[in-house]
């Protein structure tokens, strides 16, 4: 029971702290307190406070994932900073499923044959010699 309570209070603290972050992070300095364009768009897209907390967490998540994928730690920060909120969220949620453009043929024979046939049919474009 005590453990549960401790977890709950930790969770509550984290939620409250994070909940106040987007406001603190909003780019207000130098703009006379006007509401920024990105903040206005975000408010249009996400009305839910929980989703806004998610935005903040997403960038941390992407940072970790890039490291795990072998990106040089010196490059990670600039890469994360150049993402839009929506992109950061997509990457946090489903980087593993995202298509990664690379174009290298790893070949298993059966697959090779299938792709050869679909190439000849003009459905795919794996082997240059089928054209």
């Amino acid at each position: 029971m005590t453990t549960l309570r401790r977890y709950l209070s930790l969770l509550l603290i984290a939620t409250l702290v994070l909940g106040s972050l987007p406001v603190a992070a909003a780019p207000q300095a130098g703009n006379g307190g006007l509401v920024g364009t990105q903040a206005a768009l975000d408010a249009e897209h996400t009305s839910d406070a929980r989703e806004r907390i998610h935005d903040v967490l997403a960038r941390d998540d992407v940072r970790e994932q890039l490291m795990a994928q072998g990106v040089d730690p010196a490059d990670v920060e600039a890469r994360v900073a150049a993402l839009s909120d929506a992109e950061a969220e997509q990457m946090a949620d489903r980087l593993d499923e995202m298509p990664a453009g690379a174009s290298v043929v790893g070949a298993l024979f059966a697959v090779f044959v299938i792709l050869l046939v679909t190439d000849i049919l003009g459905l795919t474009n794996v082997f240059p010699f089928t054209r």
Partner: protein
Amino acid sequence: MFYLASQRLQNARLAGVLLLGLVLLLGGCAATPRLSENAAQTLPAQVFIQDVPFHGQRDYQCGPASLAMALEHQGVDTSVEALIPQVFLPGREGSVQPEMLAAVRRQGRIPFVIDNRFEALLTELDAGRPVVVLQNLALPAWPLWHYAVAIGYDRDTNELTLHSGETPERIESFRRFDATWARSDRWAFVVLTPGELPTAIDAGGAIDATAAFERVQGAQAALPAWEAIATRFPQAAMAHFAVGNARHATGDRGGAIAAFRRAVSRQEDLAVAWLNLGLALDERGNTEAAREALQKAADQTGPWQERARRALASLDNRPRHGP
């Protein structure tokens, strides 16, 4: 990229059955893409963009190579080597879409994802803009994702020209290209200097792309893009709102107020524009007009109501100047 290796086919018979199934399944899908009547009439028969530099990819670097080609065409001084640490994911041995766009922003150019239609691609090429496309050269089950740069087309022969992989000016039939492109849901983007807009884009897409750019490069760099969007889509209240913010951030307060006014005239219930209009008017000492605008914002329920009320209250509590 090694989905292939993870697949184990039991024996040749199974492969045969699968093959037959695939052919039946996919045989009907691929056809030469058709153009709308309007596009068919207005698009020229042949387009070729002459001055797109070519960079052959090595290993898995079709992402950085495609980016380098599109960026250099836009006058950015960069190289494949410089772009690799910005987009390449060693663990995936490739580059993902969001990071391709993010890398463009870092070079001071705006990536616009264009409409996912075949004629959108031809329209951009006709306007002289190379288009970075994402193809799956193989099949959905064993994807072979690939970035290339479309640089021209020929409607007489139904062929597209691309800088692709190790081949400059590679020719692909419309039919085969579209079959491979459709597997990425026809994902494509153009790289433009702020102030230029693609033809094949809607207001929402242009606004989101520019907001993401502004986040990275700041209001000064984004202002020409916002002005262009407000000119192209004069009815988009959010575009005028963004123009107002960018003008304000660069010190043009009068211009900002004019833009906020345009925003609320296009969409009367855009509370956030009323709020910024009120704050900007107040800064210039125009208290009465500011009060009016803030009242409009405070009257509407939503995320900005509380802030508008606070601004209104501080306006009323302030000691009054003048007579």
